[in-house]
């Protein structure tokens, strides 16, 4: 049957896999481990097969590429593995393919020529797992610094100079005394220094490496025909810079004032989410996901919860979330999308030089939504709201506000009235006003239109996601491409841009807020009609037992496609930790396109281009 199907006409993933196996008989094999999906590809022919997958099978969008270390997992071979999730931009589920390598001298061919979006993700795999990618032009550490001891995400990695296997302690009461973590770090007395320890060798060379790779002081050029000879100049921006949206750093080579080359340097907020996530139980990770993209914690929760629910669904005792829980989730996620886009548009204006005033307008509206979050989840920013199988608390009957200003009155309003007024009146009115101020503004038009253009094919190749991708005219939204939750029954459009410049990205964000309001207007009657129903499916399970296997779920977060890749070790006894916990961070992967986008623009434009990508460093560096 299979051989009648042309590769480009395969509809389901199974058909695509069958075609792939037929075309590469000894290279591609099924991943037969229980709970796993996709195919394993012989690593020497990975590039060839990947090109076939992209060109013939039409999986042109590489969503995620990440490494897993299977060292020490019971019943598994001792190897490192790269996992790739590729999608069709027209929608559908993922074709998962993997390449395995031994742990010593780990090498897997680079896919950067097939999908340029694999650039940063492969650098991350080299940094954290020590997998070399022959063919990668710039394989340097990305999150840590050059000279860091070892590759920290490997299962047998130990902290340099550090005696214990685990940090901070194995037992809470070793020999009857409490240890503080401080006593065990490199400055305390519980360290092991090598006998040949030489202080003079300790030198941080990452800065020099970056500058040298940018061609610092290499040549003197004369500018096109004129007799003005100019040096190429290397300019460093960040990590402390008000317009880098956090602790992001860019190193640029300038020709006059025009950018020749731009190298993003990150990792200044690398706080080891993934390793801490492997130590935590599944439920303990939910508050950590809040701190990824700290402007849209509800969206992060939703992505993680969906991933684990997908994993749990393979087991026996799984109950899907109730309808009311799904309604509340969508309510929260869409409100959070508005919060995040308000912030993003406000800060884009900040970067354009309208310092803080547009931001204040946006922030005023944002605070109203945060009040609702605080009343419901107990916290303004880090909501920690969703659970596997539902949400942890119902929407309250009334919202009690606190008095914040002098002469402020204490608010006590009905929640539904508050939401209805906000969604139907207040926010649309604000958006009208905001669009009136922004969209026809001459300065904004002059500085944004035609700047930082990324064409549609390039945006797809660079794995861009979210408003960045849609502004280039690609109507790709996970809520439509691979629907989850109750989005199939909701009516909304996917706004797209035409030119893929900064202005279009801003317009797409403003239109998305309108679409979110449209969704919320459909959510309100559902919220009313399901009042009193259960918000949690089944028994509240605080220590879920996930069956063996892997799972990858993604949601359309405000910054783009947020995916979680979780491998479960499936240990039936004891507390359960994920074996691997990876976050496909949209901010991180969108930054891959920053260099190509800024080439040929002026320094002042780079600030705006970065603002239009809308990165959040907590997610970029994780």
């Amino acid at each position, binding site marked *: 049957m299979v051989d009648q199907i042309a590769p480009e006409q395969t509809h389901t993933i199974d058909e695509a896999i069958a075609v792939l196996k037929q075309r590469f008989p000894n290279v591609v094999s099924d991943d037969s481990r229980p709970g796993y999906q996709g195919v394993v590809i012989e690593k020497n022919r990975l590039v060839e097969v990947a090109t076939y997958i992209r060109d013939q099978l039409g999986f042109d969008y590489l969503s995620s590429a990440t490494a897993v270390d299977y060292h020490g997992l019971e019943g598994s071979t001792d190897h490192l593995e790269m996992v790739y999730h590729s999608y069709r931009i027209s929608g559908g589920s993922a074709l998962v393919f993997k390449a395995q390598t031994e742990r010593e001298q780990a090498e897997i061919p680079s896919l950067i020529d097939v999908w340029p979006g694999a650039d940063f993700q492969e650098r991350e795999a080299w940094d954290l797992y020590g997998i070399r990618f022959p063919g990668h032009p710039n394989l340097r550490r990305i999150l840590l610094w050059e000279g860091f001891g070892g590759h920290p995400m490997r299962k047998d990695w130990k902290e340099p100079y*550090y005696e214990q296997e685990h940090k901070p302690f194995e037992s809470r009461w070793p020999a009857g005394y409490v240890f503080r973590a401080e006593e065990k770090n490199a400055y305390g007395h519980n360290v092991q220094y090598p006998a040949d320890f030489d202080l003079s060798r300790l030198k941080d060379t990452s800065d020099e490496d970056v500058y040298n790779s940018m061609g610092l002081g290499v040549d003197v050029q004369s500018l096109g025909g004129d007799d003005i000879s100019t040096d190429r100049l290397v300019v460093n921006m960040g990590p402390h810079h008000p317009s880098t949206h*956090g*602790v992001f750093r860019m190193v640029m080579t300038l020709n006059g004032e025009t950018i020749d080359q731009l190298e993003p340097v990150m*990792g200044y907020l690398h*706080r080891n989410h993934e390793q801490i996530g492997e130590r935590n139980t599944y439920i303990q990770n939910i508050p950590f996901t809040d701190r990824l993209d700290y402007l849209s914690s509800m969206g992060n929760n939703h992505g993680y919860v969906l991933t684990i629910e997908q994993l749990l669904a393979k087991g026996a005792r799984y109950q899907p979330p109730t309808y009311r829980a799904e309604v509340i989730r969508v309510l929260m996620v869409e409100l959070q999308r508005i919060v995040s886009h308000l912030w993003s548009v406000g800060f884009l204006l900040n970067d354009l030089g309208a310092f803080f005033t547009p931001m204040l307008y946006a922030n005023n509206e944002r605070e109203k939504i945060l009040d609702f979050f605080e009343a419901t989840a107990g916290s303004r920013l*880090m909501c920690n709201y969703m659970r596997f199988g539902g949400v942890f608390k119902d929407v309250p009957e009334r919202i009690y506000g606190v008095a914040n200003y002098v002469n402020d009155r204490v608010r006590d309003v009905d929640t539904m009235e508050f939401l209805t007024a906000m969604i139907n009146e207040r926010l649309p009115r604000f958006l009208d006003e905001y669009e009136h101020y922004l969209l026809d503004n001459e300065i904004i038009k002059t500085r944004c239109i035609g700047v930082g253009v990324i064409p549609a094919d390039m945006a797809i190749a660079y794995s861009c996601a979210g408003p960045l991708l849609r502004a280039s005219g690609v109507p790709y939204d996970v809520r439509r491409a691979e629907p989850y939750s109750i989005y199939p029954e909701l009516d909304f459009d996917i706004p797209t841009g035409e030119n893929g410049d900064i202005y279009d990205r801003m317009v797409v964000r403003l239109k998305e807020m309108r679409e979110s309001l449209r969704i919320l207007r459909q959510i309100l009657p559902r919220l009313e009609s399901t009042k009193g129903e259960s918000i949690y499916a089944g028994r509240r399970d605080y220590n879920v037992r996930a069956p063996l296997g892997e799972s990858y779920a993604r949601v359309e977060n405000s910054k783009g496609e947020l995916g979680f890749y979780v491998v479960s070790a499936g240990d039936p006894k004891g507390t359960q930790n994920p074996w691997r916990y990876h976050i496909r961070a949209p901010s991180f992967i969108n930054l891959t396109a920053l260099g190509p986008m800024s080439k040929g623009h002026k320094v002042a434009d780079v600030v705006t281009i970065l603002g239009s990508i809308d990165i959040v460093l907590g997610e970029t560096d994780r």
Partner: protein
Amino acid sequence: MALTTQKELDLRQIHDTEFPLPDEIQGTLAVTSLSRIYNWSRRSSMWPLLFGLACCAIEMIGMASSRFDFSRFGMEVMRASPRQSDLIIVSGTVTKKMVVPIVRIYNQMPEPKYILAMGACASGGGPFKEGYNVVSGIDKYLPVDVYVPGCPPTPQSLLYGLIALQKKIDGQSIANADDVPWYGAGPSEPTPIPILGPDIIDPRQMDIIRRQAEYAAQGKPYGVRELPPPMEIKKKVSAKAAALAAATVAAAPEPLDENRLKRRMEALERRRAFATKNPEV
């Protein structure tokens, strides 16, 4: 300044309460000390550094914007340059990679300078304390004046922390060199910048590290934390079991000390004499 909304300077703010004045002239006359007026002007125009690290920075901006509005306390000017700022709000997780620029920025700030550690991460590592790239608190490297707990702290609590810092400044005295070390003789020492080796190395710990490396080269024991002997855990014994144990092992009664016996007998005598005198008691 704190007084931007008022047309005239309210003299009560700079009046030093050590010098009593009658109520009726308090609005027109102020007697004050140099320290007082100096501190008052300093704390009413604290300029924070525009410096956001992580999640807490969002709440810091929230505090700066119109709802909470920290310009009420004379702090509305957030400067992006460390050369122009008096206060650095460490708002977020301090990673090993980031602590190097932070120490550099701190060294560039002119004195008098203050540090406010905002949130759990900056105060002590917070939820990410055990990460391999996380410094457990900025106070491992820099002196912190005010800690604000929370993850993240609400804008209200950050405002409270800033008011606490103002109170701290009010309490400083120019006469006391411990309070205001920047008026000491000569320029103050910059904080040594940490080195990023295989792990982060604090240059102030170099001596210890060098000594330990020497011990390691000589094969001597090193790097062992001196533990007190393990604690003895005493089991609670019930009275019944104790009586049983006493019955089985008849312990010889301890001979009483001679002096003690004598004192006890005397006390007994006194008590008998008292009882015979007052039979009704």
